[in-house]
């Protein structure tokens, strides 16, 4: 059986140059499907990772009860003190809580690539913000000064938006702000933001209410105690979430959409590719019906014919899958893109075409090849030998 299959498969493969046009239908159809699938999944992966990297299990974020994102939340000054003094919040050497009451606002900045305006988050942060988020490092320039209209800008924002380089001036709410530093925070969502002193930002936006309080906990296990205290306090109506849970929720909707795009659009394209493969393999079987009948007459078994058609469909699909995966890797891997996040602001993230995604794409390609080869293979096996010989 193995010798028979090898012989027929080798013959089939050698005849591909005579059927190069129809063979390309499988290869190109599958390559495009895999490229689209892998690149959209890389987007899902990149976006999820960016938001997942933003949180730490020993940090908690407090929003007004019922608020799904910071933009729709408000917390009074009195309440921020209650929150920061709650049990479970880590204290610094001076006994002060490591926490930051913050506000976020949206400003429009031109994108470097297109020049069109896109929303960017301006975050007002407290004095303890860098202690709270040790992942934030100033990589160029310096930290902003309190009570001065100065901003630091995330590295991802610098790569995506114009006019945010150190020394640039940004105007919003009729106030002029100077960019004095650039920071990195491990590629998380904050790296897409501009940050300034909370009191100065509040005054520029003529607000007196904060939108969130983020606290460092004594340990991840202290979360329950902290949450219990806040949610049972009758003076507070707040939602308390671990930071990773909060950012996972923020990415859920977009992830759903991107997954739908990947598997919806990819699925439709896969169906198209299956029909392409079916068509190609039916043509291949039809073009070789005399050869198949002759081999069957000589004594080659139907099983060997079925396997050989399958192997050909699989090999062509594999070539398509490899081309598609390579194209996705070449054109999309490492690309930085931005999309609208939960605060109606842009989140900048990196597309990473991981080996896992490449393998998934190739598995899809093989799946398409198997389905595309199945019916033509059955047809080839059931070809009545005498009839096929006579038709010649």
């Amino acid at each position: 059986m193995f010798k028979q299959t090898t012989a027929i498969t080798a013959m089939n493969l050698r005849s591909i140059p005579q059927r190069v046009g129809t063979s390309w239908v499988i290869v190109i159809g599958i390559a495009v499907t895999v490229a689209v699938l892998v690149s959209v999944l890389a987007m899902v992966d990149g976006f999820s990772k960016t938001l997942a990297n933003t949180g730490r299990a020993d940090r908690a974020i407090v929003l007004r009860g019922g608020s799904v994102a910071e933009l729709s939340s408000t917390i009074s000054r009195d309440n921020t003190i209650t929150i920061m003094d709650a049990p479970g919040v880590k204290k610094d050497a001076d006994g002060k809580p490591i926490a930051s009451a913050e506000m976020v606002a949206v400003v429009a900045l031109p994108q470097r690539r297109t020049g069109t305006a896109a929303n960017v988050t301006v975050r007002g942060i407290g004095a303890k913000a860098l202690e709270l988020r040790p992942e934030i490092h100033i990589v160029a320039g310096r930290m902003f000064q309190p009570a001065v209209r100065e901003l630091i800008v995330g590295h991802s924002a610098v790569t995506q938006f114009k006019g945010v380089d150190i020394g640039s001036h940004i105007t919003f709410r009729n106030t002029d702000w100077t960019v004095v530093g650039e920071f990195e925070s491990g590629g998380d969502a904050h790296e897409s933001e501009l940050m300034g002193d909370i009191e100065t930002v509040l005054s520029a936006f003529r607000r007196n209410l904060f939108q969130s309080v983020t606290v460092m906990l004594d340990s991840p296990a202290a979360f329950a105690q902290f949450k219990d205290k806040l949610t049972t306090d009758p003076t507070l109506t707040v939602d308390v979430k671990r930071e990773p849970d909060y950012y996972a929720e923020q990415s859920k909707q977009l992830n759903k959409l991107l997954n739908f795009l990947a598997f919806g659009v990819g699925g439709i394209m896969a169906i198209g590719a299956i029909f392409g493969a079916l068509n190609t393999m039916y043509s291949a079987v039809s073009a070789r019906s005399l050869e198949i009948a002759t081999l069957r007459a000589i004594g080659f078994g139907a099983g060997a014919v079925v396997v050989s058609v399958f192997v050909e469909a699989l090999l062509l699909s594999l070539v398509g899958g490899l081309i598609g995966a390579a194209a996705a890797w070449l054109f999309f891997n490492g690309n930085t893109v931005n999309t609208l996040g939960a605060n109606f602001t842009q989140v900048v993230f990196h597309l990473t075409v991981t080996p896992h995604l490449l393998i998934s794409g190739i598995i899809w390609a093989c799946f398409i090849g198997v389905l595309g080869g199945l019916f033509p293979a059955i047809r080839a096996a059931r070809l009545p030998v005498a009839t096929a010989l006579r038709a010649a």
Partner: protein
Amino acid sequence: MSAIVSLHNVVKTYTRGKQTVEVLHNLSIEIAQGDFVALMGPSGSGKTTLLNLIGGLDRPSRGEVNVAGERIDQLSSGQLAKWRARHVGFVFQFYNLMPMLSAERNVELPLLLTNLSGAQRKQNVLAALTVVGLADRAKHKPAELSGGQAQRVAIARALVADPTLLVCDEPTGDLDRTTADEILHLLQMLNKDHGKTIVMVTHDPKAAEYASHQLHLDKGQLVEGSAHA
């Protein structure tokens, strides 16, 4: 000599839509081992159908088909394929060579169904090509061969596994007279010198003259000659 092919009361019908057509009617024939039989008759007389039954490419609707000591009408498709590989060499009108394979690779095909080693297969292929006088064209592909040479390669392929029976369907139908005579001489030589039993379908009375017996079919029945060839 003992009969190597024996058909008893064979009926073969085909269904085309709602119509059933009986192609062979209660046919009984016997062909002795070492015989060279020409099956003749007008188009539609059932000669290719009969040849397909003898070669195990088709099954009768009724009746018995015994070839090479086996009741082949009762074999499954898989068993028939193995039986054909062991007992039958086919020669077709249009040669049916694999266009992408060289002459020697074409001839080697039936040997891939045996347990012979690569070296043994090579030796047998060379022997078969030598018998048909084409050892020097072993590396050529079918497109590089003339019609007569291609048919010789096809005969070498039919011979190479040393089958019990050679089944030839219009082997000279695509060749000019001179080349056809060369092929028929070759078949005659294989019959006389190598003892091969040959059953050949032909329209050509001159081709039939090379056979030792002729069976004439008309409307699915033997009309002339002997049922015991």
